[in-house]
């Protein structure tokens, strides 16, 4: 009789064990100051941010091919909760964005936003120079090109700089209006040529490495290029000045260096207009008082370069 009660007791024991752990053992209640959804609208739908309640982060995995500069998220919060700030677009490179939510019980939670841009790496820059030949780039030139696996045709996304002996990044000037990127297929794969960059006019000559940054990727040349003084270019300008006065000429591209002379033909004779002073970007020229009134075409000479006749006039008027 006693032994036959054992199965009955076992059944009761099992039942009590399985039914013991229930409502009284609920998990801790989640705060109601939560972000419950974080979505980024893109051209073909939305990208969902990953919300991690353990470390209070929101991670957005953003494919590079959308080429977004900012994300403009849509945020959902717990019932009755509210965000403490209005939702603003966020720069994709931002590392400081946070969102604070206040629940209807006045609890607050702050989330940190992490944007992981999914880029193909490594970034490889095609060397302008080789181990035996160093390419020269003219100071102030606006026609610099650089090639690599940039994976974008948006010139504004490609940041190019020169690294000299000072180890400082000297950014090449890029303008969304003139710079352009062209895909080029090589035997080794698809590359992109960024053209019409400008070397800053104030950089010293010498050797520099070329560094390229595209969002979180960085590539750098192994061999340096050499900044040199190229053939100066003078900006087009119609000059009108009186006898005995001075006028100014400028360059916004290759800088002035070893400016030797500026001359005009007076009665078939080469006549020098004295160079009062000059810097890399500006020269002050004087018109002698004995130059007859008239219109002249100037010729300039920089040391190391052939003389060139300019395509703009100097109108000399009476003093």
């Amino acid at each position, binding site marked *: 009789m006693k032994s036959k009660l054992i199965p*009955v007791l076992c059944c009761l024991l*099992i039942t009590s064990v399985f039914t013991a752990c229930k409502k009284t053992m609920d998990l801790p209640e989640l705060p109601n100051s939560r972000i*419950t959804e974080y979505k980024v609208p893109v*051209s073909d739908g939305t990208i969902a941010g990953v919300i991690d309640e353990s470390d209070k982060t929101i991670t957005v995995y953003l494919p590079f091919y959308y080429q977004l*500069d900012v994300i403009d998220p849509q945020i*959902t919060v717990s019932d009755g909760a509210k965000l403490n700030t*209005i939702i603003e677009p966020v720069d994709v490179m931002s590392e400081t964005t946070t969102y604070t939510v206040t629940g209807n019980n006045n609890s607050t939670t702050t989330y940190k936003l992490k944007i992981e841009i999914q880029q193909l790496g490594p970034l490889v820059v095609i060397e302008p120079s080789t181990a035996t030949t160093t390419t020269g780039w003219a100071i102030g030139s606006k026609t610099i090109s650089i090639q690599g696996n940039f994976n974008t045709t948006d010139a504004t996304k490609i940041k190019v700089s020169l690294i000299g002996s000072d180890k400082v990044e000297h950014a090449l000037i890029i303008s*969304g*209006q003139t710079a352009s990127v062209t895909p080029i297929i090589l035997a080794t794969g698809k590359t992109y040529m960024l053209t019409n960059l400008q070397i800053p006019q104030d950089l010293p000559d010498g050797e520099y490495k070329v560094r390229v940054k595209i969002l979180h990727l960085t590539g750098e040349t192994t061999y340096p290029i050499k900044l040199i003084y190229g053939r100066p270019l003078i900006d087009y300008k119609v000059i009108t000045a009186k006898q005995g006065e001075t006028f100014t000429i400028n360059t916004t591209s290759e800088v002035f260096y070893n400016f030797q002379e500026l001359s005009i033909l007076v009665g078939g004779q080469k006549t020098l207009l004295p160079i009062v002073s000059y810097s890399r970007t500006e020269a002050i020229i004087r018109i002698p008082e004995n130059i007859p009134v008239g219109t002249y075409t100037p010729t300039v000479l920089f040391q190391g370069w052939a003389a060139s006749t300019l395509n703009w006039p100097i109108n000399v008027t009476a003093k």
Partner: protein
Amino acid sequence: MKMKATKINSIPNLIILSMALLVLSSCSKGSDPVPEPVIPQPTGTVPYYKLQRVENFAVETDDTDPTAPKNPAYFSLENKAIVEANLAKTARWDVGFNGLYNSFLSGNNGSDATNLGYGGPGAGAILIIEKPFDEVTDIPAEALFKTRGTLVGTDDHGDFGEGTGWYLYDFGGTTISNGTYEKQHVAYALGNGITLANGTKILPRTIVLRTAAGNYAKIKMISCYQNAFTPDTWFRSTPHMFFTFEYVLVPKGSTKFEIK
């Protein structure tokens, strides 16, 4: 014996009872999930069905280098506000101005590679109709809207025309006027139509645009000159490009333009 048999038979009954208790006492049903509120974007401050006017919206201009491309400009019809260029790939703008003198208009569309909003969420598009603003009451069929960038600009009745445009460019000053120096290189907005020097009447133009959010607007382009809103006040030396236009918004799904 009878009693013994009863006890043996009660064991399966107890097991069934235990299972039933287990099932009934386990996970109690929670309450149904409550839909959570979406915080609306801070857009759409302009009410529907109300006529809006924008005067002298300025864009970058350089007469010394007129053909050099300028930085595009962006305008939100939903908020009646200029939008910064770094927000090009968001749904925060509705009309893009770029091309020659930033005079070509387009909608904000993220799916068209030629569009300023390419990659972003914009669902916009644009078209132009040869009809007065007040007479454009039906929203055109979806198939007629175009998503390309740099789309609606110079009209074929003037110089350098590119189809039906919102303005007529008079290079020599003789298409509209008498060819005097000050009437050369004038851009005539066609929101009210115009009569050519040879007597030909050009019908008014109205732009219809689907906004980035999918609402609709009709737009009357009035002028691209600063504080000058009629053709008799437009000259080559009048400060430009300052866009003046009127528009009305109606919500997504509408079939008619109404002003209430």
